[in-house]
């Protein structure tokens, strides 16, 4: 009987629940989409770096944390919000310089897994440095983004999530304009396509890498501010990177629209699964469900939804 109960809970009850409470379903889906946007923000940093330098930046989560810590640290010293943002962006650009000089340049032409490992070392370094510089406490972060719950016809949406989605939209639009319309953006796309060809037409690889890591750092800063407003700026902030990984593989490691679409799919998918299928399986299935969802997509498109097809030559 228990097995039949389980089958029923798995295949019948969720749909019955959805049918009976359509507003709740809508609420969960919208909440999931908005959370997904937050994941995409973090995933964007990964995509930018992978596209231009071929490195899977394990340290992205730590960069988000470091940027948020610097921002909050400056705020607590009385610096106004806009100045703190600009100063932190400058710090991230300086960090990009240092990374390029000390880590990327000596390791040029190494295999991807070596570069991946170097970013792991980098994340340990940044973790330790961030905690020495700013301490291990929790910092509250409130830059005035409204957080009231709004109710539209029985469906709850939080103002904060809407603002975050708007900020993300603006950021993606800015990045799109940057990549399509400016010459630096064109150079970045050239480098992402083929390093050697880009070098042969005279694009300075090192400068491009610095620019890309800086942009990723600033994207990380925005992500850090938004996530930090949600959780408080503390060490666990770097764990948001783990939430962004399924987004990356679903959307494709090399695609900015993929990061957005992937984020939306993963966010809404995992929330719906947790709410409607969670009770059948004991709950807390969000984590692995996101990965399982990405895995299912990968089986049909092994490079992610929008990723570049890898053409293997023998």
């Amino acid at each position, binding site marked *: 009987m228990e097995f039949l109960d389980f089958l029923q809970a798995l295949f019948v009850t969720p749909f019955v629940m959805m049918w009976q409470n359509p507003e709740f379903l809508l609420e969960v889906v919208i909440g999931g989409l908005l959370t997904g946007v937050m994941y995409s923000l973090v995933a964007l940093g990964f995509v930018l770096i992978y596209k231009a330098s071929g490195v899977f930046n394990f340290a992205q989560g730590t960069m988000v944390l470091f940027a948020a810590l610097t921002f909050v640290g400056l705020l607590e010293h009385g610096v106004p919000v806009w100045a703190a943002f600009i100063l932190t962006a400058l710090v991230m650009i300086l960090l990009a310089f240092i990374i390029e000089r000390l880590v990327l340049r000596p390791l040029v032409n*190494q295999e991807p897994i070596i570069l991946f490992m*170097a970013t792991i070392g980098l*994340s340990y370094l940044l973790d330790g440095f961030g905690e020495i510089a700013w301490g291990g406490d929790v910092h509250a972060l409130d830059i005035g983004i409204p957080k009231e719950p709004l109710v539209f016809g029985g469906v709850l949406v939080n103002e904060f999530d809407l603002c975050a989605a708007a900020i993300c939209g603006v950021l993606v639009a800015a990045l799109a304009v940057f990549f399509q319309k400016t010459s630096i953006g064109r150079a970045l796309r050239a480098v992402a396509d083929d390093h050697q060809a880009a070098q042969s037409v005279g694009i300075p690889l090192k400068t491009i890498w610095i620019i890309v890591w800086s942009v990723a750092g600033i994207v990380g800063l925005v992500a850090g501010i938004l996530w930090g407003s949600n959780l408080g700026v503390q060490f666990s902030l770097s764990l948001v990177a783990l939430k962004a990984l*399924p987004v990356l593989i679903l959307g494709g490691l090399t695609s900015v629209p993929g990061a957005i679409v992937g984020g939306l799919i993963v966010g809404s998918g995992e929330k719906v699964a947790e709410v409607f299928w969670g009770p059948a399986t004991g709950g807390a299935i969000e984590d692995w469900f996101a990965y399982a969802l990405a895995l299912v997509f990968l089986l049909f498109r*092994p490079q992610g939804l929008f990723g570049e097809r890898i053409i293997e030559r023998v």
Partner: protein
Amino acid sequence: MLYRETGQFKTSYIADQAIFPIRQDRYLAAALLVVAYVAVPILGTEYWLLTIMIPFLVFALAAIGLNILTGYAGQVSLGTGGFMAVGAFATYKITTSFPGLNIVVVFVLAGIITALVGVMFGWPSLRIKGFYLAVATLASQFFLIWMFNKFPWFNNYTASGVISAPPRAVFGHFFVTGAEANPVDKYLFVLTTVVAMAFIAKNLVRGRVGRSWMAIRDMDIAAEIIGIQPLQTKLLAFAISSFYCGISGAMWAFIYTGGVEALAFDIDRSFQILFMIIIGGLGSILGSFLGAAFIVLVPIFLEYTPMSLGLNIPVNYISNMQSMIFGALIVFFLIVEPRGLARLWQTGKEKLRMWPFPY
């Protein structure tokens, strides 16, 4: 001068195919074994045996397992922690259901169960490659940990979900798990297991199976064309790798910590083992040992040095400095020798051949 192989002639194929063809290497390996079996138990304090040697050996075993999968067969996997958890929980269920069964048999059975689980989660590797596969294996990692956390059957319905090792003995009265276990007994048991399994792994990777893995790693389409079956080869890699990781997890839970909850095998553990094989050297059994030693010893070294130098630095500074130095060391080693400590060792041996001449 010391390391020349002049004068050493092989007169049979078997001698030519030895793991250590050069006599000096054989002496070194024998010396290491003597030190490990005799000197360490006699001279080592309980602290050394229990908190340094045993975790080093257990991690080395897991690193060998992951090296087989990632270093030799080229399938990047981040699910090592999950497989270790399978080994630990399988051992627990088997030994609590059949208390009379010898612990060695229980470990082997748990390893086989882990191998089957590994094969199941290895199927996607036939379609997905590279970093995508790595993140896909994270699905198995999170799922397995969730499963062990969620279903109380796995931990025999304890309130807390922590499984703790019942006392078990080998050869009648040498306890290796539980409170009565002698540190020396535990250490020798783990050492023997790891040496035996490393030996088996070394022979596997030198033989036909290992060569087929390396062919898949280097150019899988070309390998398929010359007749190596990707399905069997990749799944065999997953199976054997999971076998090793399962036994490693079982020893971790039963012999090292004595009691473990599912979260002890979470994603940090997987990353830790991956770091070990990358630092130690992908595609090298010696590298697994070196990498495990690096990851186990360097943090302790970094923590102990300020104290033994008499500097009174607050623990949080030490811990953060340790993190920074660890990260810097990783980057440094990668710049100096991207192919890991094992390659450094090989380079050292080559220099030793020439010594005292520079080239």
